[in-house]
């Protein structure tokens, strides 16, 4: 195993702390924030151009020193899935079809603990007598705060990987918790945030390419761009997650889009879904497989526990009930996936703000089993209108 202790102990560069420069090109801004001295991937000929009025920005959150960076992703058409000729593909990646995506901003990095912890901290804060339990029927207008992490399992594992802090990627949350986080984040910032749809994620990852990876078909090059199973060992020789932004970005300026942690998307995992659209071109709303059962769910891009073939642009990671095996309680917590140490998420913010109803669809509980558990009494909720945050400039 390669030892990467020197890399692990690298202090964060000042770029983390400063505001990202509003460069005209996302890629240029990305280079400015690079903690390691590597040059980004050159913008490829096929990469869709970012319109001049879409600029990268840094999102701050009231009362929190930590910020996160967003980069523009133009609208366009993506061929999702992989051709049958692609090496090591899974048949669930086909048949291929075209999806038209509208412009959005996407997290330059995977969501990190320094931000996610602030959301988790609301549970005890509201538990200090200040919060009120919100009846189930008002849930649509409330944010659910996750019950505490399952320390006996997650504690040592996360501690080994450098803790749950700073610019390490937040992990082991369920899709429901990630969605509620984006609802909380929207209330805190005054900007609409949500998880990406599967097609949006693939459009952003591919950046106009049709090859297995955005840099071509040669998996050997993955080491330059991603932490995966064969290169992510920590100083103790075991694989683990790494600070975000340690590898080269993709042509849109997205870091760790492959590897480090797999990224949860909105869609339900459904291996028969693509067949409905074979050879067609559809809009992103039509392509979106809205979930209706708690499992299976879906993450994209692979993580530090993934083999290189599972980091391909088309690779789909199926998340099942087994990913929450180690929760010794019944019913299991709807907020955590106890096996998801290499599963996190990245947020997006579409240019065109949807209706309030559609926003709630992106944020709220979407299946009966989870809704049933939420009716129990461990809930700490807060009405969106009570989550104070200044309305950020659009």
């Amino acid at each position, binding site marked *: 195993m390669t030892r990467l202790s020197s890399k692990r102990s690298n202090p964060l560069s000042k770029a983390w702390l400063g505001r990202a420069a509003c460069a005209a090109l996302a890629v240029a801004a990305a280079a400015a924030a690079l903690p390691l001295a590597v040059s980004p991937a050159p913008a490829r000929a096929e990469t869709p151009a970012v319109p001049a009025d879409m600029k990268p920005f840094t999102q701050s959150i009231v009362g929190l020193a930590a910020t996160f960076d967003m980069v523009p992703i133009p609208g366009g058409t993506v061929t999702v899935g992989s051709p049958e000729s692609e090496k090591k593909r*899974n048949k*669930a990646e086909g048949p291929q079809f075209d999806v038209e995506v509208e412009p959005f901003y996407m997290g330059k990095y995977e969501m990190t603990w320094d931000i996610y*912890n602030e959301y*988790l*901290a609301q*549970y*005890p804060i509201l*538990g*200090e*007598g*200040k*919060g*009120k*339990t919100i009846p189930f029927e008002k849930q649509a207008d409330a944010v659910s705060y996750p*019950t*505490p*992490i399952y*320390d*006996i399992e997650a*504690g*040592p*594992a*996360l*501690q*080994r990987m450098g*803790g749950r802090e700073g610019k390490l990627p937040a992990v082991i949350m369920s899709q429901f918790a990630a969605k509620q986080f984006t609802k909380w984040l929207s209330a805190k910032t005054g900007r609409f945030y949500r998880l990406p749809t599967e097609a949006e994620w693939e459009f952003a990852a591919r950046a106009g390419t049709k090859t297995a990876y955005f840099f071509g078909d040669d998996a050997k090059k993955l080491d330059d761009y991603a932490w995966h*199973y064969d290169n992510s060992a920590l100083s*103790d020789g*075991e*694989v683990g997650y790494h600070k975000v932004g340690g590898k080269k970005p993709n042509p849109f300026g997205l870091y760790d889009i492959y590897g480090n942690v*797999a990224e949860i998307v909105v869609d339900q*995992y459904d*291996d028969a879904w693509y067949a409905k659209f074979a050879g067609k071109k559809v809009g992103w709303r039509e392509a979106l497989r809205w979930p209706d059962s708690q499992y*299976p769910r879906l*993450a994209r891009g*692979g*993580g530090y*526990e*993934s*083999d290189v073939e*599972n980091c391909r642009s088309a*690779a*789909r*990671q*199926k998340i*099942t009930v*087994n990913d929450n*095996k*180690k*929760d*010794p*309680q*019944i*019913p299991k917590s709807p907020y955590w996936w106890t*096996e998801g*140490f*290499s599963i996190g998420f990245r947020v997006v913010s579409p240019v065109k703000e949807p209706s309030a109803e559609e926003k709630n669809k992106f944020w709220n509980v979407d299946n009966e089993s989870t809704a049933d558990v939420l009716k129990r*009494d*461990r809930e*700490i909720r807060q009405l969106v209108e009570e989550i104070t945050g200044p309305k950020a400039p659009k």
Partner: protein
Amino acid sequence: MTDSIGSTRRDFLKTSAVAAGVALSANVVASRMAYAAGSDELKIGLVGAGGRGSGATAQALNTSNAVSLVAVADAFEDKAKSAVDRFKKDRPGQIAATAATTFSGFDAYKKVLDQKLDMVILATPPGFRPMHFEAAVQAGKNIFMEKPVGSDAPGIRRLLAANEEAKKKNLKVGVGLQRHHQQKYIDTIKKIHDGEIGDIVLLRVYWNGTRPWVRKRTEGMTEMEFQMRNWYYFTWLCGDHICEQHIHNLDVANWVMKGPPVEAQGAGGRQLPFGSDQGEIFDHHMLEYTYASGAKMLSMCRHQPGCWNAVSEYAHGTKGTADISGGRITFNDGRPEWKYQAAPGEGGKKGRGGDPDPYQVEHDTLAAAIRNNTPYNEGDYGASSSMTAILGRMATYSGQVVKYSDALERGEELMPRDYKWDGATPVKPGADGLYACAMPGKTQVLAAKKA
């Protein structure tokens, strides 16, 4: 079996762990000895239908399809009913409990023990465990009980006495300290017991995490109902988090030292903002324990978000150091580090998570002991590890050096004399709705010596 789609190495390991689990269950099934005339049938009852009680029941049901749940008790009617409903939905073939065998109230446990059962699962808040355990032993049931096994010294004494009866009756007793069934711990501690790190001079154990759930007071709740629903925050029910969580780490140290420490002193308190919902417990404890050999243990547990998190155990010896939770041993003489290797996954790939789930293994081994009628009793270390945590709490609450023997003999009683929904609770809120917590230097934790 895990689908291979986009699977990670972890999935391979999970799959192999499932396979290992299946193999183990198959062994259990294959070893039909002298149980119920060659049948695998086990009838189980559940007392305390909360999250962990339901989880433990699921694991007991996993041991064989011939295991059935026949009766359920909870203090709260809604919890007992919803647990049965959920089990009927999840495991339709294994649930024989009916409305007539679903009980609620403070005496519901007696009604479960009146049923024909092979095993009862005791998973109420810890304060009730000694009373329930004693009754289960008297009723001649095999027992799986969750940790800790009491919240005060009189309770532990009662449980120890009942456990002697359990041994005489050859009842099987399992305790939910699942690290005893986790291969990494078993192998690492065997190395320490084999003398690999020499004589132990220091142990360090931690549970620094986050505050657990709260359950809020609602309109019309009596004080007793509020405390029972929000039991984590009341010492008589939970023992404080040093008992409820940190016991896992203290238990590992006692396992290494082959017995509990002889005394403890330490500091603790409540520093975070709190309301009525936070009851009376501390949010941090830090202890120095001393073992009979003179070895010291540093123990720390904390519920303060934003601080250094750790759930781990270490042992330092004259020849080396063991990171027990990490499954690693380093040697002072420069020998290469020893590292625990988890069971390999598919294709011999190594990684984390290849071992069977210890929460399942503890039930598989207990069920096998019941079926084969082999001696099986984890009650003594369950009791001494629980008492070690209670001793720590007594030391932080009082600010004194407290001896284990004094604590066990004279530790004060916390439990109420009788249990009624509108009855008196051991602690009451003040005029401001808040509960007083212990004050080191003033709080007394020992009853007077008997003349």
